[in-house]
């Protein structure tokens, strides 16, 4: 499957949607604004050319969406002028243009040396994502002795960006130097290069996770479960959030209240007369939404027979 992102006018965008569905592809997300529609989708590799031709006919732009199907969280120490909107939002926009679903977090007490802390709430929120990207500062002493220690309890893949070159021992952290709280809007050449280094690190981390998933595959692909949920739970259409069923690498986030809809989600029918609970664990997210974590073949066995 090839993941792609289409940007064009709302007029005739449904031709593309129909084509994607006809060739056996999946629509991951569709975002409609008044003058622009952004569609992230997956199609079989052999049908990419048909999609390119259609995109040309309806005057849209097509790009590879290398980060499609991931939910990333971008964490900055604060929302002060030092960090936001530049470069925090510029970095987020870059990931979104590559197809990722990105959430933004500014820590309550992320600034300073001895005063910096990560709260239990922030830790829970961050750990629900596939990957966390942190932005730190310019002083080696601060990053080594305080900031890296602040995030050492996080049990997930992390990309850290800061200014000084450094070696980081923890295996789940990828460190990128050269980019920090400089008010860049990423339009000039050198700024783009630094941002590309971070994007490259994120891509490599996602690649590693996907390879690890190949060794012990998921019993069903997340996109299949997403389709079934969208077809069988009408309440999804009432959800106003963007991407009401958000794809992650090995799970889904459903933006409906856990207390009301958890049972409906658990009873969703999937292939071979099974229900969703046979393939995944349904749990409550920190904010009361529904998280569906798909099981691996080593635990639940293969659903497709030997």
């Amino acid at each position, binding site marked *: 499957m090839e993941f792609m992102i289409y940007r064009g006018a709302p007029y005739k965008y449904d031709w593309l949607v129909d084509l994607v569905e006809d060739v056996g592809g999946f629509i991951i997300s569709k975002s409609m604004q008044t003058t622009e529609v952004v569609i992230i989708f997956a199609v079989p590799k052999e049908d990419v050319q048909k999609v390119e031709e259609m995109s040309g006919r309806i005057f849209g732009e097509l790009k590879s969406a290398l980060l499609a199907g991931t939910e990333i969280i971008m964490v900055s120490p604060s929302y002060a002028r030092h960090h936001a909107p530049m470069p925090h939002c510029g970095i987020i926009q870059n990931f979104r243009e590559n197809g990722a679903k990105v959430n933004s977090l500014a820590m309550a007490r992320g600034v300073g040396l001895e005063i910096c802390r990560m709260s239990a709430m922030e830790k829970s929120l961050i750990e629900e994502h596939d990957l966390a990207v942190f932005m730190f500062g*310019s002083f080696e002493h601060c990053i080594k002795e305080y900031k890296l220690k602040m995030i050492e309890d996080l049990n997930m893949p992390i990309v850290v960006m800061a200014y000084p070159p450094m070696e980081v021992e923890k295996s789940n952290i990828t460190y990128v130097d050269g980019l*920090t709280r*400089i008010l860049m809007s990423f339009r000039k050449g050198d700024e783009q290069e630094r941002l590309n280094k971070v994007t490259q690190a994120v891509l490599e981390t996602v690649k590693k996770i996907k390879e690890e998933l190949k060794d012990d595959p998921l019993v069903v692909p997340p996109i299949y479960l997403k389709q079934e949920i969208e077809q069988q739970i009408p309440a999804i259409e009432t959800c106003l959030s963007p991407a009401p069923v958000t794809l992650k690498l090995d799970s889904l986030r459903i933006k409906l209240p856990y207390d009301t809809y958890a049972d409906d989600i658990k009873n969703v029918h999937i292939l071979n007369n099974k229900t969703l609970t046979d393939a995944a664990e349904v749990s409550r997210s920190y904010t009361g939404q529904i998280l569906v974590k798909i099981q691996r073949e080593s635990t639940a066995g293969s659903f497709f027979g030997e």
Partner: protein
Amino acid sequence: MEKLFIESEDKHAVEAYRQIVDYVLHDLSVKSLDAIHIYADPVAPFFSCRVDFERSGNPLKIKDLSTERVGDEDVDLVIGEERYLPDMLRKLWDVYGQDRVEQSERQHVIVKGVSKDADVEKLLNIVVVDPLEKFYEQLITLAVDIIPVGFRVRRVEYAGDSVLVIASEKTIEKEWIDYSKEKLQWNS
């Protein structure tokens, strides 16, 4: 272009702050800056920043903003520049009290009980707006944008054409102040 001097034991931080200051200056577009001196100690920790500027813009006095008509017992000020009228009234209230200052019409302010030459002279020389104050505020905003966000404890000193800000996340020690003043060649 301003002169920029950054010193710290952390050499990479020096490079980073050169770029940070560059972008902040571009973003805030502060005029009449002369030089910026920075010293950063990441271990203590404290961060000192001295900003020098070229003094420009004279203080505006009552005589610059209005024309006076001296009467027997009071002075009628005919307002030329309405923009500063609120500041002017506030200043006159401070000096003479509200009961002696009357704005009878839109363009007239009467100050009662002032008729002798010496008093009139004193009235006309009252400073209404000092652009230097606004400028100091701009410079402090600039310094705060440069200084790391977590260093909320700040000590500010002014001297003529310079502002010195020493910041830390802890209580500022006397030795840091002395060291910064020496490093940044601060003459208080």
